């Protein structure tokens, strides 16, 4: 009885998952469809004659964009961790005065729409000559991740036993050494979670890229896809191939680091 019920549930679960992931399947399917079959009616449900022309176009044209996105993602990870981890330490373990206010400001910062930030950054970068630069885009993208990172680090580091820090202090370690030798190694998982989100958000960003880096020599992949849609609306197989390639980091991270993803989503929303 119970096993039967479980099978029934598994079947239903597979069905739900298939429905949910249909758009993803469709993206992959279209990416393998030949250009002349794109307009056929009804559309081809399976790529019976897979073509790689879409992917050839990606590798011929999109490699610089993928490299730029990688660079921006990694830059954003470094910047976010370097700023957020020490701040988390100060808030969680060093009893920073005004910590509650700072926490509150970080929560508010997360609510500010990116389009508003984009306008502010545009005005500033315009006068500083930072428009269309990778560095400028890294800074702008990091504003999505830094408040999240600080809150996550604070939440995690608050759980580090104080006795450990006390012991380190007795052994003559100062605040910096304690941070480097005890707090950071213990926070490995939260560093991974923060890095993962900082990377994904920077990689996926479209608003900052399309406003601050519109005419740059190095454009990220999201902007590249967008320009592609504008330029050749007939070559949807190439567009979808680019989209598939742009989804690779997300897919890898989902497989490799699924529990960090779930941890990051629930952080701040659920208290346990």
């Amino acid at each position, binding site marked *: 009885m119970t096993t039967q019920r479980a099978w029934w*549930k598994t079947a*239903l679960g597979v069905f739900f998952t298939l429905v949910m992931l249909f758009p993803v399947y469709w993206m992959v399917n*279209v990416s393998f469809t030949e250009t002349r079959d794109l307009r056929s009616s009804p559309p081809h449900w399976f790529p019976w004659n897979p073509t790689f022309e879409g992917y050839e176009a990606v590798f011929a044209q999109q490699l610089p964009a993928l490299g730029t996105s990688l660079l921006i993602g990694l830059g954003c990870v470094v910047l976010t961790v370097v700023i957020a981890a020490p701040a988390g330490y100060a808030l969680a373990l060093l009893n920073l005065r005004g910590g509650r206010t700072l926490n509150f400001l970080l929560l508010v910062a997360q*609510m500010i729409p990116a389009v508003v930030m984009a306008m502010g950054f545009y005005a500033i970068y315009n006068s500083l000559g930072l428009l269309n630069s990778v560095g400028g885009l890294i800074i702008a993208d990091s504003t999505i991740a830094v408040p999240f990172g600080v809150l996550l680090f604070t939440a995690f580091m608050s759980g580090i036993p104080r006795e450990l820090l006390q012991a380190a202090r007795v052994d003559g370690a100062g605040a910096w*050494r304690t941070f480097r030798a005890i707090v950071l190694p213990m926070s490995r998982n939260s560093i991974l979670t923060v890095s993962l989100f900082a990377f994904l958000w920077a990689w996926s960003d*479209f608003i900052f890229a399309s406003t601050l880096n519109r005419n740059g020599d190095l454009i990220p992949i999201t902007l590249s896809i967008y320009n592609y849609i504008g330029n050749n609306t007939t070559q949807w197989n190439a567009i979808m191939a680019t989209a598939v390639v742009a*989804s690779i980091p997300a897919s890898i991270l989902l497989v490799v680091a699924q529990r960090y*993803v779930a941890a990051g*989503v629930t952080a701040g929303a659920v208290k346990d």
Partner: protein
Amino acid sequence: MSSTPTVVGSREEPRGAAGTRPAVPHGRRRRRTLNPSQWTALGFAAPLLTYLVVFYAYPLWRNIDLSLHDYTIRAFVQGDAEFVGLENYAEVFSSSTFTTALVNTALFTIGSIVFQFAIGLALAVFFRSSFRLSNVLRALFLVPWLLPLIVSASTWAWMLNSDNGIVNSVIQAFGGEQINWLTSPDTALLSVTIANIWLGIPFNLVILYSGLQNIPGEVYEASSLDGAGPWRQFWSITFPLLRPVSAITILLGLIYTLKVVDVIWVMTTGGPGDASTTLAIWSYREAFGTGMPSFSPAAAVGNLLIVIALVFGFLHLQLQRRQEAS
């Protein structure tokens, strides 16, 4: 060993170490200013504080500044924009787009939230009892959320394409008529809302699922001993016990949905006309979407959006605080 800290220790080190020494003279200084450990804490928080001032407060200030002046591209370059006070706000409020954008924002947000939450909750309850493959399938549900928004949005745009989209093909196979999803004013907003619901389901599922994990299994066991069926269990146990988590999920969803630009912009650019223009899209279009940027009204709309987001934000904080207190 004791020499290493001076090498790596930067400025904080001597002060941090000083705290461990039973040094009497420090006592006096401590009373006058911040005590040494506070200076250490401040040192570690300094990068963040600087960052917040330079990369949050300053852009926001520039945005307010934009909304109070009449910035044209020329004024932007020369830096001599005229101060116009609240004129931009008056212009925004009296614009014919304002009501449309406000109504669209409300419809888009409420429509997205209601369905994301309902579907997310149903799935969370479904996945609550583990079964074969349940963890794998639940992980797969995260995929739409992890994909770059532009990828999902362009996929939906092609699926909803009038002539070659799979959606219309299925509708026509069942004898229906072709629907111009993205190009008809009647369905454009509906289309982007559907795509956004799809995007939001994973987030709702994950949060509600972990909320369900916190409800002890014994509660369910006791109620089934009392003869409560699944339906009854949902309404008298799951739903009330999940209320705090639900409230927070919904508010976070609201704050997130108010901000959405990418999805709508890629699918319809807010059109046709203003049919799918929300406040965020309006702001983006004014500033960056046309050849003739008008930053000042765009900034005014953006600031309006901040106010709306903050109202819900404070509601969220209030709820969270109450939850922590209980």
